[in-house]
Each structure stands twice: as C-alpha cells, then as structure tokens.
C-alpha cells in the first residue's frame, strides 16, 4: 500500500526546480567559518565544497522522493557533512564551526533557490519545515563524525596508556623486567603477552621478572590471564619469576585454586632479580 503525501504548491515547485548555478552563493558561510583566523581551509577548497554541496542538493531535490530521509541521495548528503566534519576536526577545528556552517548554509540554500526561481520559498512554512527536517539530519551526521573522532582519540589514548603502563625493560643481558600496574583484562593481557614474547625472542631473554606490586586486586579471570602469560614465557624457554604478590592476592590465588607449583615467586622485585642473576651465574656484590 502506498501513501500519498500532501505537498503544498511551493514544496511541489521546490521539487520541480532544476538546481544549478547556486554554488557561488553557498560559499559565503564556508568562507566565514573556515577561512577566518582559524584558517581551516582556503577559498578554493571552500569553492570546491560549495560545488559539491550544490550537486548533492540538486540530486536530493530531483530524487524520486525528496522527503525520504533514508534515500540514497540523502545518505550521500549526510556522507558529505560527515566527511566535512572529520576534515575540520582533523585540522584542529571545533564541531561548533561545522554545526554553525550547516545551520547557515541551510538559509543560504533557501535564499539561493529563491533567487534562482523567483519563488518566495522563505515565506513558505512547509518549505522551511522540509529544510529543517533535512538539515537536522545533517547536523546529526556532523555530531556522528565528532563522536567517532572522540571515540578514536579515546581508544588511541587508552592503547598508549596500556603500552606505557607495562614497560618491558632489559635490565641485564637476557633478563627482562615487566612491572604490571593496574588491572589485567583480556585485551591488555593479549597486548602485554604479545610484546613480551616478541621481546624474549628478539633479545634471547633467559629470565623474565614479572612484578605485581602495582596489582591491588585479582579475580579468577585476571589470575587465569596471569597464568597464561607465565606459561607462554616458560614455553618460549625462559624462566618466569613472579614478584611483589600482595598478601591479599596470595590469599585470593589460594582460594581460586590457582596452581603456583611450577612458578618461581619472590617477595620483591629485588629478590626476583637476584634469583634471575643466580640462575644465569651472575654474582652481584658490594665493592
């Protein structure tokens, strides 16, 4: 069953309009927002995006159903604003710049179409309502890009934090230290394990001292990850020495039935290093 939408005369006139030659009138908002003191774009670039915008608006108004906000033409227009937002954010601009641009360009489009057709679209409530619904969607696309960008930045920061919170250091020829601080979750264990095993292979490490002084609590999953890490180190042919286990963690490991029989443990990192040196036949003493 199809529903026929009742369109006003001016909206019908708008959809029947052949849109061309309005790009130059769409440039003003772009120049004002992006070519000012922030220098996010040059005038030529603004001219290019205005031409692209003209073509996309023409496609939407000339489409089979311009009121369909899920149409391919509307998706293309949303993609344009999404990309524009990404571009501006990457160049150090603010999301407010793109939102203001989008709002201003809405009125510029109506004015340009009025000039091109001689029809007073700005006086028509239904035309204004139509453009408001379209541009609301476009503002959503702008915010979508902003949120994506924020999410990516957040993930990159988290990854960097993870890397810096588990520094693997070769403290002596063949002896690696790995102080673990914070919580060991699945994704972090994967990252730590991957870099640790690669370092063992690259440096031909014979012993790894894993210090848990910075781990304040442990649960079944974390202990399982810890065991996996120790086992992988042993499988590579290196000795794993676990140090700095807090009494609460020791109690938790016992209650979780974790088998520490094949794992060397020492109270502190210093004791762990002494054990690693002893196994390698290195003696360290006061001069």
């Amino acid at each position, binding site marked *: 069953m199809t529903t026929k939408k009742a369109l006003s005369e001016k909206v019908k006139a708008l959809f029947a309009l052949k849109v061309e030659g309005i790009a130059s009138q769409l440039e003003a908002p772009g120049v004002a927002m992006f070519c000012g003191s922030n220098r996010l774009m040059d005038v030529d670039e603004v001219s290019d995006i205005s031409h692209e915008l003209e073509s996309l608006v023409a496609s939407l108004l000339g489409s089979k159903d311009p009121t369909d906000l899920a149409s391919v033409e509307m998706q293309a227009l949303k993609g344009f604003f999404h990309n524009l937002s990404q571009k501006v954010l990457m160049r150090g601009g603010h999301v407010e710049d793109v939102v203001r641009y989008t709002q201003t360009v809405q009125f510029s489009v109506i004015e340009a179409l009025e000039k091109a057709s001689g029809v007073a679209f700005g006086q028509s409530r239904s035309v204004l309502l139509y453009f408001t619904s379209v541009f609301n969607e476009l503002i959503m696309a702008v915010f979508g890009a902003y949120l994506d960008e924020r999410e990516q930045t957040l993930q990159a920061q988290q990854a960097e934090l993870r890397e810096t919170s588990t520094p693997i250091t070769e403290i002596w020829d063949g002896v690696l230290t790995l102080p673990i601080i914070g919580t060991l979750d699945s994704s972090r264990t994967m990252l730590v*394990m991957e870099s640790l095993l690669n370092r063992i292979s690259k440096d031909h490490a014979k012993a790894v001292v894993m210090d848990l002084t910075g781990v304040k609590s442990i649960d079944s999953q974390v202990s399982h990850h810890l065991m996996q890490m120790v086992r*992988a180190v042993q499988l590579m042919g290196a000795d794993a020495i676990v140090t700095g286990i807090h009494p609460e963690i020791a109690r938790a490991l016992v209650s979780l039935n974790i088998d520490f029989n094949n794992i060397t443990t020492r109270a502190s990192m210093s004791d762990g290093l002494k054990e690693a040196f002893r196994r390698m036949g290195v003696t360290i003493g006061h001069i």
Partner: protein
Amino acid sequence: MSIPGLHLTQIGSGDFLLDPSRSLNIRDKDSLIDAVTAHLMQMRAVRLYYDLSDLGLIDPLYYSWLDALARAAHIINVEMICIRMQPTAAFALARFLDGLPVFKTALEIQDWQK
C-alpha cells in the same frame, strides 16, 4: 636419518636434533613415533631437540603429537626439549594448556646445554 616429514640428525654425543618439514603428517603419529624411538634407542640417545622454528602456530592436534612423542621418548629415557618456539606458537599454546607440557622448552640448544 630421514623419516617421512622428519629429519633426525645426531648433533653430539647422545644429542639428536629433530627437524620437522612441511610434509610431516602428524595424523600418522604412531608409525612416526615408532620410527623415531627405534632410531633413538639404536643410537643410545640421551636428548632429543625438537626444532619448532618453522611453526607459527601450535594447535591441539599438533600439541597431542608433541605430547605423545615426548612421552614415548621419556619411556626410553630420552629427554625431549622443544627449541625455538615462536612467540605466536607460545601464545596460542598457553591459551589452551592447563599445566606445563611433558617436554621441556629452550630458546636454543646452547641455552639448554648451559
């Protein structure tokens, strides 16, 4: 000595290096174990080094082959040491192992000998 898919070479007094090739068919593990252990007994072997350098991943099937070979070697008083395990293989193996394997591991032959 060459067994289908395996190269067994004496590298010292009582020490043997087992180097698997790409054509190794571990589904035929019984006959492979028979051939390897027979040769080790004949040569009075003490240690068997299994080279894993070409193996990027150890799955449960390959692990069961290594486990069976190590157990068979142990019965004839030969110690099996897997050498040059790749980080990716150790990573994969550690994820499904519950305890330490029957065989020993070392980065290189020299590391174990030391």
